[in-house]
């Protein structure tokens, strides 16, 4: 993974000093709250319902054991013993004091971490495929380019006061595991006919109150043009994005209102001026960054590991875990292992300090000291030897981390909702908890198979409900929580926005409604191999609608 050199370390330390100074000026009254707010947000510090919330960047979701242990220590010393992993591969602490935040940032800087640009109207933490560097289907490791983008966008002099926030995601394979088509810029690594590396470029995707799928501006952008092209997009957006209405300020609205062709022409015209300037990516620099992401030296292992196969035959729990929580690895005898942060009845994405320490220990012992945070709010060990899986599973299970539900209905995404968030209209976590309790039987979940359930507590859609196979949106109707259900959304290479099926359900009926949808699917699926989303795409929404609301 990327390691700081002296420059990076000094940079982050200067930034801590700067924030310390800003906090001091705020406490002395030299900065008003209006002036301080964008500055604290640029350092990931929000004020929520009960307290401040500090969002720490985990660039493209990659961290090591030492860093995870530091996060656990911060949770224990400055917070309430737990933290929350987010859909943008970051981590949130829910109870820090403003006066403690400079100290927390110092602690983070000591392990090459920071909270720069985890909020505010700037270019946010760049996210990437959580199986990067390990997946057998990738063209190249997307984190190399994510790191290049991270450096370029950090405290960018021109793009720090944009009309609205700006999110970039990058994936390394044709199968999109980073939801690139619902980002402001989505990049998908590919190759041209000459075998040169580049990117498919999507612009103007996003969720929120106006969900949009990104438009493809380029089928192939050569890698050396990455920064120049991004700069061109950002300049067009900074100058022309709407600033009169916060809800219409994202680039998706500019793309939608101007039209795809107009935006493409403007971006390409700007790109011509920027191209071959000082942002041209030298191959040596790509190589230099690439070296940091060199995979570990893998042993020459057999394709199947007999001890592992035997252990699976003996333990149904292990077999279930292996079935759901392991992803094919490019090296024989290895796997990428998903640690579910969705225990039955738990808050999606939460981990205690103790669990974070267990994860750190396991990563150092068994996983080449590499940890990933997935946008699905789980933890991934990208490189694990198959023969170590039984022991890892045993230790995970003993610490409440062994849920064999990756990709299943109880592996839901949920935003913090009204339990924490000042923007929310309804609670999300209790809905996720009840659904996972209703579907607690692992046998039943495995029978249902792949099903992405996503829950947001307001129209800002932090829980990505628009792209859930089943999506739930909490709204406030005359003081009561009401939940709208959407169906048919997806955030992979076949991105689609879910359709609202009908009127919403009160909190005590929404779980029944989800169960009705699932039962309907089980009744009408062509066979066990046909996943929920495929059945929906085959039959449309009519049977589901009828099941929920009747034919009248």
């Amino acid at each position, binding site marked *: 993974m990327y390691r700081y050199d002296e420059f990076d370390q000094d940079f982050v330390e200067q930034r801590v000093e700067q924030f310390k100074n800003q906090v001091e000026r705020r*406490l002395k*009254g030299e900065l008003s709250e209006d002036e301080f707010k964008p500055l604290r947000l640029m350092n990931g510090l929000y*004020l929520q*319902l*009960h*307290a401040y919330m500090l969002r720490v960047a985990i660039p493209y979701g990659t961290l090591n054991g030492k860093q995870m242990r530091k996060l656990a220590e911060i949770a224990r010393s400055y917070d309430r013993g737990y933290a929350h992993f987010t859909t943008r591969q970051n981590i949130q602490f829910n109870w820090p*004091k403003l006066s403690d935040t400079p100290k927390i940032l110092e602690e983070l800087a000591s392990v090459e971490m920071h909270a720069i640009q985890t909020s505010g109207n700037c270019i946010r933490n760049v996210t990437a495929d959580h199986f990067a560097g390990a997946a057998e289907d990738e063209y190249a490791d997307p984190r190399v380019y994510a790191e290049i983008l991270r450096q370029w966008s950090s405290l960018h002099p021109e793009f720090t006061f944009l009309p609205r926030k700006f999110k970039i995601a990058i994936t390394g394979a044709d199968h999109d595991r980073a939801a690139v088509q619902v980002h402001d810029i989505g990049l998908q690594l590919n190759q041209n006919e000459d075998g040169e590396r580049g990117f498919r470029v999507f612009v103007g995707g996003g969720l929120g109150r106006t969900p949009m799928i990104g438009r493809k501006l380029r089928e192939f952008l050569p890698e050396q043009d990455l920064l120049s092209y991004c700069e061109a997009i950002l300049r067009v957006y900074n100058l022309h994005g709407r600033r009169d209405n916060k809800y219409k300020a994202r680039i998706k609205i500019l793309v939608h209102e101007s039209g795809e062709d107009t935006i493409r022409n403007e971006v390409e015209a700007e790109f011509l001026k920027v191209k071959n300037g000082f942002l041209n990516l030298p191959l040596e620099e790509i190589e230099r960054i690439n070296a940091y992401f060199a995979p570990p030296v893998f042993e020459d292992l057999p394709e199947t590991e007999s001890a592992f196969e035997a252990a699976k035959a003996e333990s149904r729990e292990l077999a279930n875990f292996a079935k759901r929580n392991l992803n094919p690895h490019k090296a024989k005898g290895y796997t990428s292992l998903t640690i579910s942060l969705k225990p039955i009845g738990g808050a999606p994405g939460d981990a205690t300090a103790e669990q974070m320490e267990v994860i750190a220990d396991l990563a150092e012992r068994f996983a080449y000291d590499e940890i990933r945070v997935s946008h699905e709010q789980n933890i991934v060990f990208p490189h694990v030897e198959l023969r170590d899986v039984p022991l890892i599973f045993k230790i995970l299970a003993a610490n409440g981390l062994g849920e064999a539900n990756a990709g299943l209905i109880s592996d839901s995404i949920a935003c913090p909702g009204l339990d924490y968030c000042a923007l929310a209209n309804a*609670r999300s976590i209790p809905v996720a908890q009840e659904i996972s309790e209703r579907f607690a039987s692992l046998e039943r979940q495995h029978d249902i198979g792949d099903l992405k359930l996503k829950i947001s507590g307001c129209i800002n859609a932090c829980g990505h409900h628009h792209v859930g196979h089943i999506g739930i949106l909490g709204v406030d109707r005359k003081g009561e929580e009401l939940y709208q259900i959407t169906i048919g959304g997806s955030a992979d290479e076949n991105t689609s926005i879910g359709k609202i099926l009908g009127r919403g359900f009160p909190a005590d009926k929404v779980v029944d409604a989800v169960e009705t949808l699932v039962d309907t699917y089980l009744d009408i699926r062509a066979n066990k191999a046909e996943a929920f989303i495929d059945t929906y795409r085959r039959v449309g929404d009519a049977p589901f609608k009828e099941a929920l609301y009747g034919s009248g």
Partner: protein
Amino acid sequence: MKVITANRLLDGEVVWLGPNGNWVEVLTRAEILEEPSHVEDALKTAEHSEKAQEVVGAYEIDVVRDEGRILPAKLKEMIRAAGPTTKPDLGKQARAS
């Protein structure tokens, strides 16, 4: 019936405006404002507190009397007054009784 609420600048703690212009950590000690003019005055006091770096984002909320107890009218304010419903061990609810 209204009370004025805000978050304390230093640590973000939820507070309500008390009878002497001080900020209190439990809703039961907040000053209940019956008249619109009282609300206006209280908001002015709150603005002073904001300028003095004591609190952030002050606003008025509706409260109701329920069996003699003062409770916020809206769910969001109930949660602010108690803590996350999913974590009864945290927030003000954990300190109560």
